[in-house]
């Protein structure tokens, strides 16, 4: 009479999973002044809002989201990323006809292969879960970013119009209605 032996394989792996998501977009900055001056005004407006300048690129990190603005091209990149260290434990068992003989070896090898697949699948699931979290977070932040960038573009346009008016003649009166987002400049030429 033959006996069956239970072969059990257990594996623990540590993985660092990474997820990122981003959006590229273009700010609609009106070309009121030459491009270099518009870029400088944009950089100034962003600096006042806490952006750090690195050459022509300004960036700021808030709530896990990085906003980077290239002032010369008025392009914006909003990016979110996250990393997580995860430990995955997996276990599989099967029956073999011998304890440490050739069949047990084959069973153990098969179990190891299955475990590898299990771990890969679990890593994939965890990565997808983290990715969904990052994407959701980015989507939630985009609304705030849009409002802020709209305000930045508005303030840059106002500044540019004032500069342009000053170049054209003597500014007699400036009336600004923030609610209606309108600006009236009276210039004496």
């Amino acid at each position, binding site marked *: 009479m033959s006996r069956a032996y239970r072969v059990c394989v257990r594996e623990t792996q540590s993985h660092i999973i990474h997820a990122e998501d981003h959006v590229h*977009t273009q700010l609609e900055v009106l070309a009121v002044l030459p491009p270099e001056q518009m870029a400088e005004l944009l950089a100034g407006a962003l600096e006042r809002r806490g952006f750090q300048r690195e050459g022509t690129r300004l960036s700021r990190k808030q709530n896990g989201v990085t906003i980077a603005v290239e002032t010369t091209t008025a392009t914006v990149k909003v990016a979110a990323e996250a990393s997580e260290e995860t430990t995955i434990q997996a276990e599989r068992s099967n029956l073999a006809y011998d304890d440490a003989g050739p069949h047990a070896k084959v069973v153990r090898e098969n179990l190891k292969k299955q475990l590898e697949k299990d771990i890969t699948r679990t890593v994939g699931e965890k990565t997808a879960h983290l990715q969904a979290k990052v*994407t959701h977070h980015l989507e939630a932040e985009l609304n705030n970013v*849009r409002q802020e960038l709209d305000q930045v573009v508005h303030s840059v346009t106002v500044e540019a119009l004032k500069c342009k008016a000053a170049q054209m003649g003597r500014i007699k009166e400036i009336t600004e209605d923030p609610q209606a987002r309108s600006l009236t400049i009276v210039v004496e030429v």
Partner: protein
Amino acid sequence: MQSVSRFEANLLRLLGYFLHREPPERALPLLEERCAAPPCLHSNAVRLIKNALAKGCVFLLAQRGGWRRERFLRGSRSVEGRLWERTPPAELGLTFSAHTLRFLIWITAHRLDDTAHAWCAPEKELTLGDRLLLYFAYERLRNGAERMGASALRMQGPFRHHALCWLAFPGDYTAMPASAGPNFAPWTHGAGACLLEALQPDLARRWIEVESGKEGLADPQAMRMLGLAQEHVLTAFLDAIEPIGRMDLARFLLQTAAALLGPHAHVGMWTAQLNLAGLRVADRVATYQAATSFLRMLDRLQTWERRARGVGYFDEDYAASQLWKADWEQAQGDRLVDRARAIVQQLSPLRQA
């Protein structure tokens, strides 16, 4: 009565099919029935092939758009009339090289997907007539014989770089490697440009079909590949015609835009069925950009119009500029671009948030 062998009869029937002289039900079975190629063709058959090419190609070109009274550039002035009135017929003559005959023999003797005996011809040796026949052949085969391996055909040498096939069927070239770009050089000068003029209504109809098809496209990956292929071919096409001042050859793009961007055009016409669930924001944006690749390209056409406004009477490209301005006005280009921008804007990630 001229007698030909079975192989020659099959070849002539396939040629007739490519030139819209034979119905698919008489020609397509021949693509399945293989027939061993003889060492050479009888002079009767060669005469009939010459006759079919001479009459068939001219007939198709005239039918497709050559008959229309249109205005196109001829040198430094614009000329109105039918194709053969704009250019003397003697200058419109097409030459067919031995490659046309070899192609016809190959397609009669082998299956389309027969990779062991694939047809190949050096790109530089092809004449305009060869290229035109290949275009008509591909057009018929992709519609009638896609199951029989017509998709394998476009992977073969001359079709990989065939600019007219790329331009008319960008959706067929989504799986092409980056190195297999369209070669527009034969289509932007001389008789090649005249053929492109005659095929403008064809191209407009095809682009309307492709753009309209996006409404029902659900797979984001398929949309991205289609958008990339469209961007690839349009960039190559506009890059080819801009330096030589033949903006009038892009008239079909304006006609396409006019047909698509009516007053009721909306974003759903490009993205209605897209299944974006679970995608990253970056991938969604890429998919939307692909969906609107044609709409975004209209900006480039507008820059041509803006530049044309500044061209004076004594400037070299005055006629080209005037013609493009007239085309632009006729299509109400500014209004179309505004509508296109509004749609692109709606899909902007920061607008959607």
